[in-house]
């Protein structure tokens, strides 16, 4: 069910999206995004660069936040902008939970808009990917 602007209140949390990347998913992402950097699927290579092991692509976490927002606004709304900072690493086979909170609801240029704070949390609840978004709702 797509969300409508009238239903939104500032401070409300949007439905969370839980992820847990298999290494298979990271390989799929490599192909889907075109980023074949080996630290995301080759454990020996990753450890050779000083990492504890394979890490999840930052851009995949950005795309997860995109899915969080898309699933909330549906196809009658639109994501106008969304961004995040890569502050902490995430690993395959560990939970990544995407969350969002409505910060501001307003009208501008004839559009019904909502600003959100969005982020991903790692398996210890740390915000590894803090971000923001603006969406348009019907």
């Amino acid at each position: 069910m797509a969300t409508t602007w009238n239903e939104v209140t500032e401070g409300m949390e949007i439905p969370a999206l839980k992820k847990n990347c298999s290494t298979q998913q990271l390989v799929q992402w490599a192909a889907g995004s075109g980023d074949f950097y080996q630290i995301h699927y080759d454990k020996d290579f990753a450890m050779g660069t000083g990492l504890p092991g394979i890490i999840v692509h930052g851009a995949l976490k950005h795309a997860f936040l995109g899915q969080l927002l898309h699933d909330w606004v549906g196809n009658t709304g639109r994501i106008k902008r969304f961004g995040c900072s890569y502050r902490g690493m995430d690993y395959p086979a560990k939970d990544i939970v995407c969350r969002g909170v409505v910060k501001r609801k307003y009208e501008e240029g004839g559009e019904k808009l909502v600003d959100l704070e969005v982020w991903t949390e790692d398996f210890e609840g740390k915000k590894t990917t803090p971000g923001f978004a603006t969406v348009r709702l019907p």
Partner: protein
Amino acid sequence: MTEATAVPLITDEMRAQIGKESEPWTLEVDKTAVRMFARSVGHTDPVYYDEAAAKAAGYRSLPCPPGYLGTPIFDPRTSDATFGGRRGGGPGPQPSRPLKRVLNGGTEIEMLEDICAGDVLTATSHLAALEERAGSLGEMLISTNKTVYKNQHGRVVAIVTGTGIRY
């Protein structure tokens, strides 16, 4: 801050790169690539997979899932083997002290118009800003790049701001 950091990392040659527009490159948006991207993220909305569902939802064809802005045309003569984009023309001007490590600092995408399978995008990028900062990683050089995507009608459909950190 210590005396050793008194000489800026950012040189005049580096600053001269700010605002210089790259050569344009072409990105194709096709149904196979949209599905592959959506599948790799784990999208469940049928609009990314089923063209009839996409059209019923008002799109021209499968829409780009958030974060997907087409696939650069791969050509082994000119493309980077790991990242698929055009190979850079060398490392460019370097900071006054060597920095060994690189991190992707962040991504912001502004979406101005729907992008759907069948669209052909042209992108150009430029270095928008350089900044140096002392942080948890020590001396950091933060560069901001902006890439502007236009569709086949010449309209700007997306703007991506990427932050790179060298330390």
